[in-house]
């Protein structure tokens, strides 16, 4: 089974332009928290310029997998990752890879909006500044405006760029976090239940934003909402108890899943 899908993706990489390009590839990924294993031999490919949704019941390891894609798991003392994860064919767990650089390429948006307790402007400009992407005030103004426009927030905040980012509403804060993430021009954006702390209207705005961002970025989103997965993603991966149960086109997963566990989950029989 694994062999099969591997062969299929190999073909995809070398395939002509209309075939999907694989941006990140997870091969036999196992993650342990101390002695406890949270992920078991996950093989999952992330397609470029597509939204991949990770779904599954709570505690099944979605966040764990997501965090292993930009090595945020490194910050958890007990956490250990085995297997291969590649970004554009490069092993991101290779000792030669600088984790700081990796995270500049693979950005992350968290479950709870977590703007820095600084101004909106400072929030956005922080990443470009530490990575040396901006040289002067004009550069900074430009990157702030561009990122906020992309995140669909600019019109709402353009008059108060120097007011605290923490003073925005929850939905605006989350879009600020997205602006902050895209300000460093990442290739991949990881989102861990980005709408779970938002009201339905803010959720709709963020979903629309994800939809637009797909053109320029590769997005991996964890969500516990079936509808959201169906709305925003092209690919869906279903996890259960640390195992990748099934992955495929979102349409197929939601209409005609192969695995009975997926069927049960999307019809709400457990979750």
């Amino acid at each position: 089974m694994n062999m099969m899908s591997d062969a299929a993706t190999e073909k995809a990489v070398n395939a002509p332009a209309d075939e999907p390009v694989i941006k990140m590839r997870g091969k036999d990924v196992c993650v342990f928290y101390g002695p406890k294993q949270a992920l078991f031999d996950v093989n999952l490919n992330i397609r470029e310029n597509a939204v991949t949704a990770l779904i599954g019941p709570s505690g099944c390891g979605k966040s764990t997998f997501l965090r292993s894609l930009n090595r945020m798991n490194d910050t958890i003392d007990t956490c250990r990752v085995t297997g291969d994860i590649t970004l554009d064919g490069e092993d991101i767990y290779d000792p030669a890879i600088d984790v700081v650089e990796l995270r500049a390429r693979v950005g992350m948006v968290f479950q709870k909006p977590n703007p820095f307790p600084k101004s909106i402007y400072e929030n956005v400009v922080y990443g470009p500044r530490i990575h040396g992407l901006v040289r002067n005030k004009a550069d900074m103004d430009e990157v702030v405006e561009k990122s906020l426009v992309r995140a669909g927030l600019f019109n709402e905040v353009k008059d108060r760029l120097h007011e605290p980012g923490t003073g925005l509403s929850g939905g605006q804060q989350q879009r600020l976090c997205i602006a902050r993430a895209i300000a460093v021009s990442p290739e991949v954006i990881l989102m861990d239940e980005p709408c779970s702390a938002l009201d339905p209207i803010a959720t709709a705005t963020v979903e629309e934003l994800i939809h637009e961002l797909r053109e320029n970025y590769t997005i991996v989103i964890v969500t516990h909402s079936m509808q959201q997965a169906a709305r925003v993603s092209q690919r869906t991966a279903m996890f259960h108890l640390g195992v990748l149960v099934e992955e495929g086109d979102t349409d197929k997963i939601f209409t005609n899943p192969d695995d009975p566990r997926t069927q049960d989950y999307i019809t709400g029989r457990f979750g």
Partner: protein
Amino acid sequence: MTDATISATPIDAASPRRRDIGLKKRYAAERRFRFYGQAAIFLGILFLAILLWTVVSKGVGAFQQTMITVPVEFAQSVIDPKDKRAEDPNVLLMANYPLLARNALVQALGVDPDDKKAVKAVGGLVSDSSRVELRNYVMENPDVIGKTIPVTMTANGLVDSTLKGHIDLKVPEERRQVSDQEVAWINQLVDDGIMQKQFNTGIFVNGASSRAETAGMGVAIIGSFYMMAIVLVLALPIGVAASIYLEEFAPKNRWTDVIEVNINNLAAVPSIVFGLLGLAVFINFMGLPRSASLVGGLVLTLMTLPTIIIATRAALKAVPPSIRSAALGIGASKMQMVFHHVLPLAAPGILTGTIIGLAQALGETAPLLLIGMVAFVVDYPATPMDPATALPVQIFMWANEAERAFVERTSGAIIILLLFLAAMNIAAIILRRKFERRW
């Protein structure tokens, strides 16, 4: 069973029966608890008020000092009978200045100059420090010799105490230190406007003295200042660096647990033990001078470090982890995460902890006694290597003196120390407000 109970007591819409859910008892308990709380706070305030009242009522007098302003005749016959001051500067240094003061008072009081005993007693009304006061005056203005000029001199400590009513005049004369004659003179001088109470700058600027009226805390204030500066300069960076390392960088394993436990224990070590340590390490081993504020500062640094480390770690822990994830998530290095985001948010807490630690150090006496800071230091310490004392040690030394004027000064010194502490706490509050305003 439950069903049965429900059906047995049907709910009657017309007369809804209140269930007894123990509301009365709960409210009573709450009232009791509030009362306990209020009583505790009241007691606390009461004791604080008593403490402040006793200290202030006893010590406020120390900020006034009895002075005597009389026309003094700077007679050449007394100062420089052989007219040799041009050649020999020692003449002006060694002259019999107390005689000038005595003569001035004898004249002012109209005492018979031939009554040896009375004249001697009159001379005792001014402090021995009048020698220095008059000498300095003459050295600065040598042309006063031969003239009569009103000069202000410090009164004797006993006179000061008498005037402030600290001496019980109902005690029979032979059992008190001030005779009836002296009391009469004092009253006469006060009536003539020669003797009056003035603001006592001496208590702030003078060094050690065996005479209460000229003893001051100048050396102690400077010593304490040096030590606080040393503690701040050493303990703050070391403590903050150690905390950041332990909290943000060090792996969480047995070793860091052991270190954590030891730091907590260190905070509970009696301060006198730090004094012994300082004596052994800094003085006996490293050969630093005794009584120096440098050694005091080092000892207090050791003592303050655990406090600062514990406070800093608590402040760092209180910074939400989401801020750290946010910084790391956009590719900040750990160092950037700490210095750009975590530390600024922890700064108010660190600051408060540091000032609490400093305040503790400022009030610390025991370790300083062991390293010899309980010395009789007259001159200002020019550097932290010079002998000095500290505010609490000065209080301790004055508290050991029996004289009435020293008792008053002890309380005065306590007031000064409390004022310093209050100023530090207010500074902590102001700084914290200022930092916290940056969201």
